[in-house]
């Protein structure tokens, strides 16, 4: 496939015009995206400077005094530090352990179905929850797992006692991870299904004639075919191991489950933007979190490069 593309490139190279003068219109088509990215992604990166300042709104970023790494050390020494790190890591890691293999299994199994119609119906159903908003999803959780929700009706029917799912911190992680998988498993499997669609059917035919069962063909034909995709997704997942979004967690927090539900990003939001704001301190914590993610990503990519050919760059 890539070979033929390369050949094509070589053959037609003489017709394709290179150089800025000849291609300024392509640059023009890109200019909007560049400007938006420069403003909304790169200017905030400059704003990170406040992480090293004792930020004073009256003086602004230009005038506030620099205090070196004080904000960072303050965070490392704070009583919240350990708890936040553990909470962020655990909810992310446990979610990863379950959420990473599940879409792969679903894709491999769906791919074995001969009827494209049936496959299509299943996919339509599995993808649907992806389009539900976080507010609605958490609203559903409150309804289903509330004191008088359907889950508690079920618990009662089996002779148990009502459980206050949202008041007990031990239930935060199962609810967060379970609902996340309910919502995203089907959607995450699309990327693997796309890779599986590229498997040459002749491989399966040949293996069939040799007497390989359907299960064996999954292990020896399908799985190797999606292995590069799996590696890429794995690298990306490791790179985001400490970046749990605040959107869903904030909504799921109740006064009493904070012991497990307070994570780095929600804490940054609270101390930076609500109440007695300390933007410099909050930005430092956010930066610390972002740096860990970048380091994890680079390590994951480096190891992937060493041990296989599948890496991001």
């Amino acid at each position, binding site marked *: 496939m890539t070979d033929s593309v390369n050949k094509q490139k070589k053959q037609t190279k003489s*017709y*394709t*015009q*290179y*150089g800025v003068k000849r*291609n300024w*219109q*392509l640059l023009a*088509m*890109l200019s*909007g*995206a*560049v400007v*938006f*990215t420069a*403003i909304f*992604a790169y200017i*905030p*990166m400059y*704003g990170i400077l*406040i992480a090293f300042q004792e930020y004073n709104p009256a003086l602004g*970023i230009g005038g506030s005094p620099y205090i070196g790494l004080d904000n960072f050390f303050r965070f490392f020494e704070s009583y919240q530090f350990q708890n936040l790190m553990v909470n962020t890591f655990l909810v992310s890691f446990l979610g990863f352990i379950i959420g990473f293999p599940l879409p792969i299994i679903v894709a491999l*199994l*769906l791919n*074995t*179905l001969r009827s494209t119609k049936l496959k299509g119906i*299943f*996919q339509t*159903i599995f*993808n649907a929850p992806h389009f539900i*908003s976080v*507010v*609605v999803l*958490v609203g*559903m959780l*409150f*309804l*289903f797992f*509330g*004191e*008088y929700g359907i889950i508690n*009706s*079920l618990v009662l029917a089996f002779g148990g006692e009502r459980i*206050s799912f949202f008041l007990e911190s031990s239930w935060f992680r199962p609810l967060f991870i379970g609902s996340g998988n*309910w919502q995203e498993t089907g959607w995450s499997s*699309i990327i693997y299904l*796309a*890779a599986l669609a590229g498997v040459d059917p002749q491989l399966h035919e040949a293996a069939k004639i040799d007497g390989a*069962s*359907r299960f064996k063909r999954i292990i020896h034909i399908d799985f190797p075919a999606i292995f590069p995709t799996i590696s890429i997704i794995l690298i990306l997942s490791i*790179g985001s191991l400490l970046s749990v979004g605040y959107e869903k967690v904030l*909504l799921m*927090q109740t*006064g009493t489950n904070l012991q497990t539900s307070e994570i780095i990003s929600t804490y*940054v939001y609270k101390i930076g*933007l609500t109440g007695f704001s300390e933007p410099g301190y909050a930005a430092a914590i956010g930066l610390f*979190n*972002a740096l860990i993610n*970048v380091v994890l990503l680079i390590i994951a990519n480096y190891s992937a490069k060493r041990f296989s050919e599948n890496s*991001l760059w």
Partner: protein
Amino acid sequence: MVKQIKKRHSMESKGDQLFHYGVIALMTLFAILILYPLWFMVIASVSNPDAVLNGEVWLWPDTIDFSGYAKIFADPQIWTGYKNTILYTLVGTTLNIILTIPAGYALSRPNLPYRKYIMWFFIITMFFGGGLIPFYFLISNLGMIDSFWVLIIPQGLSVWNMFMVKAYYESNISIELIEAAQVDGASQFRTFWSVILPISKPIIAVMILFYAVGRWNSYFDAMVFIRSEELYPLQIVLRNILIVNDNASGGITGEDIYERLRLANQIKYGVIIVSSLPIILIYPLVQRFFKEGFLVGSFK
């Protein structure tokens, strides 16, 4: 040929057949697991709230009672939220498409000058960013807090989506097509407008769906940046109905909460249906475009 294939199927071993039915059974179970909560909201929204709270409603509504919906449609907040969200989604998605499609196309061209540097310029933002606090300061300095545009402009471009467009063009448009147009004397603008755009329907449809759903569903930016109730998008109204009340009553139990739940729950089920309806209607129409392999974004 067809006969041959049929023959092969009939040659399938017992074990494989069993495996096949096992897969169908498992997938059906998954499907039920996903559909049941959605179905339950539909039946709970039209049932007698007492029956729902007592756990008497499982598969079918016990009555068909639209009084919950009547209350929802009588609430001016819902109407304002709905109207605002439609506006945010329409204007915002238009901006998204204008920014994303041409940029994705330009990135897919090997003759784009400085291509490598431009790619890195975008890739870096996917893995590292200034974070929430500097972003808030930027918005504040731009004077956009509590304005209509704060929910339109800052979310103008998703780099992920742009790369998806790039990958789509890379695998779906041949160099010959573009060069044929250019040999005919068409400029690059003209080529994009009259040759590329007409064959971009699938990717544009998918982009509209992604961006529109993202905008329809987002609440966080509005929560942080919008203060005036008349600018509230639907999701903030929803949040106030579905979640904030629950949080507030977190500590109370017994009769008190039961009475409040009885009144509120039917509305909650209904409001979830009402707010998700447009997406439920659009999704199956665009679903057929997903299977193409362009969800696999390429960094190279």
